[in-house]
Every structure is written in C-alpha cells, then in structure tokens.
C-alpha cells in the first residue's frame, strides 16, 4: 500500500532542535523502558535514535519494590518497579562508559526524595562527558512534605527545578505527571524556574486487584499505567502544556507506531519518547523512524519541522459558501 513519493530523492530531514539539543530525529526511548541502553544492543544501534533516556538514577542504589511489580490491563500495563536503579556512582562507572561508545545523545533521568538529593545528583552529573541533558523526574514523593509528590504542586516542582538549575549547566527537561488538576500550572512553574524543556507524560496512577485471591495485583497496590490506553490522555496533556509554555515539549505516552508519534508532533511536541512499546517490539523505535520518513515523503514534506504543531483547529464548513442559496431553497421545500 505504499504510495508514490511526491518529493525528490534525498531522504526527508527528521532532525529537530530542542533548545540547546540537536537531535538527528525526534524519536527517543523513554526512561525506565530501555534500561541503560545496553539491554537493546542486540536489537538496534542506539546511534540510530534521536536520544536515549536512561532508567531513573538516584543518589544511592535502590532495590525497588517487592514483586509483583507488573500487571497487564486493557491496552496497557501498570508498573510499580519502585525506581530500582544502580545509583549514580555505579551509573557513572559501569553504565555510562558503554553509552559513550554509542553515537547517541544520553539524557539522564534523575530522581530524589529531597531537593538536596536532586541537587547532589545534578552536581555529580554536571560536566560529565557523554551526558547531553538531564530529565528531572518530579513524580517522586517529597519525604519532607509527608510524601506528596513534587510534581503535583507548582511550588514544589519549581523548587526542585530551580535548585537543579543552579547546580548544573546541562540542558534541563522536567518530566510532568498527568495526575494533577492543572498540568499547565506545573508546566509554567517548571519553565519559570529554569527548565529548558518539558516532557510529558509520566505514568497515570492506577490500581488492579484480583477477585479470586482478593488481593491487589501489585505488591505496592498503586502503580503507574502506561501503554496505548493512556495515549489520549498524554495527547491532551501535551496539548494543554503547549498552550501554557513556549519551550520545546517532548510527548510521551502510549506511542506504538509512527502514526502515534506523528500525532504528538502534530499537536506541537518537538520530539517524542517511546516507552512500553519497546517491551513489545524492541525494534519499534526504528520502525517509527522509518514510518515518519515515509509519511513525510507521501505528504511531500522535506522537514519534520514543517509538520510539528501543524494542527488546524479552525472549523471548516465545506458547503457553507455554495450552500447559501441552499438555505433559501430549503425554506421553500
């Protein structure tokens, strides 16, 4: 069902500029779904991707939650991994060296339970060779504020971002949670506090239970919903965030195909991240990149930039002009 190309022979230009970051294409792998990159080495060359966002890193290693940590739901899955990670020290010595050998921008997702933890992480990652940007995961409980998530309150979110901003010269991406009343307010707060970009969304809080054992399906009871089920929510969040801020926005949530990815770009996202889909098809990101190229060719576009934000929300009444006399006819009928 391939259609003939309308354009000339050179491949369409997929490169995007995200503030200070230049990416060869807008397709990244999302934090927590590609490990530290190496896990996918058998399936793809990381260098073909726009960027790799590594599993969220904390100051000290974290063992994560007890199992069960996963459950499948209609067109989605819930995870409660509990932010298991090797900690920043092991990341720098054991994981980063491999990533450095790949020709791909590495974005480090950071998390903490106090502003100080975020700051110390940023300080240790600042200026390290091979790190392109930091993504601040603000969907973490603030232990000093009774465990309320940083990302659900504009001041708390701004507090983290502002402190991290002072600690590093690296480009900053703040990753927004959808579990809020007004995502625009959090977006504005993060940008005002110095975030260069935003990424949205993190997972949607969710529960699953088993009627036979009468037990929660996750040891942690509550987990994060991801996958195709949340794509409409993620698109709405991206749409809202783009109404509130001027900075580049990275769309995330339920992207399985090039069509899904292009939907986020249409709404105005400058790049996208693929999460859960990697589990189902470890080569999905390459297929998405190829699909985007074909789309641009068929649509006769030479740059992906020409499509980003092209959403047309005006009402179009195709028969309104001609049909003026129709009304008169109809009143006679």
């Amino acid at each position, binding site marked *: 069902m*391939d259609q003939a190309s309308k354009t000339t022979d050179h491949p369409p230009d997929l490169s995007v500029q995200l503030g200070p970051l230049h990416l060869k294409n807008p397709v990244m792998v999302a934090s927590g779904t590609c490990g530290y990159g190496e896990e996918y080495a058998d399936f793809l060359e990381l260098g073909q991707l726009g960027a790799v966002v590594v599993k969220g890193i904390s100051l000290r290693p974290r063992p994560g939650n007890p199992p069960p940590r996963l459950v499948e739901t209609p067109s989605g899955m819930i995870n409660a991994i509990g932010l298991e990670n090797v900690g920043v020290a092991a990341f720098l010595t054991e994981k980063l060296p491999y990533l450095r050998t790949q020709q791909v921008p590495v974005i480090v997702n950071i998390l903490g339970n106090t502003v100080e933890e975020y700051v110390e992480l940023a300080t240790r990652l600042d200026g390290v060779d091979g790190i392109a940007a930091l993504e601040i995961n603000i969907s973490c409980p603030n232990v000093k504020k009774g465990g309320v998530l940083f990302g659900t309150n504009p001041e708390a979110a701004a507090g983290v971002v502002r402190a991290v901003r002072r600690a590093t010269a690296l480009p900053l991406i703040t990753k927004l949670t959808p579990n809020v009343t007004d995502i625009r307010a959090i977006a504005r707060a993060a940008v005002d506090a110095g975030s260069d970009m935003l990424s949205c969304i993190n997972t949607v809080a969710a529960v699953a239970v088993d009627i036979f054992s009468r037990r929660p399906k996750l040891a942690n009871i509550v987990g994060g919903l991801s996958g195709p089920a949340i794509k409409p929510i993620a698109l709405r969040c991206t749409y809202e965030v783009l109404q509130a801020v001027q900075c580049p926005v990275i769309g995330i949530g339920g992207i399985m195909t*090039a069509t899904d990815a292009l939907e986020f770009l249409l709404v105005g996202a400058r790049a996208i991240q693929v999460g859960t889909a990697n589990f189902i098809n470890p080569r999905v990101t390459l297929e998405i990149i190829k*699909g985007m190229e074909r*789309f641009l060719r068929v649509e006769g576009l030479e740059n992906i930039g020409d499509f980003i934000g092209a959403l047309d929300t005006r009402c179009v009444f*195709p*028969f309104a002009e001609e*049909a003026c006399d*129709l009304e008169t006819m*109809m009143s*006679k009928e």
Partner: protein
Amino acid sequence: MAMVQDDARVVDQQEVAERTFRLRLRSERIAVTARAGQFVMLQVHHGTDPLLKRPFSFHRIMPEEGLIEILYRVVGRGTWCLSQCSPGNHLKIVGPLGNGFTLPEKDDRTVVLIAGGIGIAPLHELMVQLTSNLQADKRHAIHLFYGARTAAELIPTHLYSRLGIMVHCSTDDGSSGYQGYVTQLFELMVNQERHRPALLYACGPLVMLYHVARWSLAQNVPSQLSLESLMACGIGACLGCALPAPHPDDPMTDSYLHVCKDGPIFKAGSIAWTKLQRQPTTPQIYLYN
C-alpha cells in the same frame, strides 16, 4: 420491528471488488424484520481493541433463509478485522436499526438511484425491492447511477442490470464508463434525456450527497439520502451520531439530528448542509505501520 441482539454465524465471505467484501450472516431474528436502508451494528473483533461495534447497511435481506448480507470496504482496523473472519465464526450483532428507505407509492414513475463507491451497499436491497413487484418493461424506469474511483472498485454491474433496471457507470479515472463524478453523469443524462426522476435515492460520500441534495432541492424532486456518522451505540443512547439540522424557529441556534434514530435516511432538506463541518479523512490503514 423491535431491535434485537443476536449472535450471528458467518455463512460466507467473498472479496467482490478491490478491498470490498460481501459478508453473509445467519440471523433469523434480524432477517425477518429488516427493511432496505436500515443497518446493523456488528462486532468486528473479540476483545477490547477495536472496542466498538461498526454500523453496516443491509446489502441483501433474505427473510426466508434467515440470512442477511452486508457489503463493506476495508478502510481501517475494524473493517480489516472483519475481513479476517471466516465461515463458522460468530459475531454479535444488533439490529435492525434506523428508519430505512420509503418505497414509492406509485410504481409507474422514473426512479433514480445514485451510488458513490461503497454507497452501493444499501441500494442493492432497495433495487431488489423496487423491482420485485414490477413487470419487466416498467423496470426500465429505474435508473442506477453508480460511480467509483476506478474500475477495480466497482461491483460487477450485471448483478444490477439483470434486475432489469438501467445502469449507468462512471469512474473518476475513466477506467470504466463515463469519466468524471457520478453526479456529473447523472445531471448530464437527466438534462439530455429530459426525463425527470420523480424520486431520488442516494448513498455515497458526503460531497456526492451534497450535490444530490442541491439538485433535488433546486429541482424540487423528493430525495432519500443515506447518511453516515461515527456511531457508538446505534440505538439512540449515546447521542454521538449527531448531524446539524436546520432549527425549526431560529437559524442561529444549533439543532441536531441523530443518524441512528432519525436516519440514516434523510431527505435533502433535513440536513443543515451549511453547518456541516469537515471531518478527518479516511486513513490508509497501516500505511505508516
């Protein structure tokens, strides 16, 4: 005339034109009460994705055999799933739904049917009913104008001409019949031959229906148009299938019809054509993976 939910057995499925399938289902309970122009909501898949049933018009109704046929084109995931099912499978079905066509009271006048693409689907049963009690010579007063993008998309027309009616074909690319739109062919023929239809039936893409509606209003010829809309329930419960209607009192106030209840057959004047908005176009399935 009650609506029922049934578990229909797939009896047969054939690809009859490019990406176009004829599906025969066993459902005694629906076949006995169905009328031409009505439709069913048909399960296309087991599981939750695709989630919703899909609406399809009756292509043939065979009450004696307890069978119904639908004719459909694969345009997306739902119709693709449907095309994968084979004899013996069971599909949940709800019907018969909607108002259906009204047959002409007198049978001696010129009747014109206009079909665009898959719009031929509901007109087949209508043609069968229009001709069923008619002497052979009178059948010539029934004209089918049938257009498609290209010859490969046309259902073989001998199926219709053998009913004794006059068939006039067009294709956008000229690969079969007149080259141009079916509404152009229709207006051309009607102007040339100067026999004016007493009644118009049409089903096809929205722009085609719009041109038919214009002509029918301008010429003051009654018309019955089969319209579409996205549907969730098909039974009047979700209010999702709205189309703008002229407001009885105040043209500035919005007013809506519901295709599944008030239609799918409407006369030209029932729709507020000026208020119709452009809807997203049909995706080419799986084009970008």
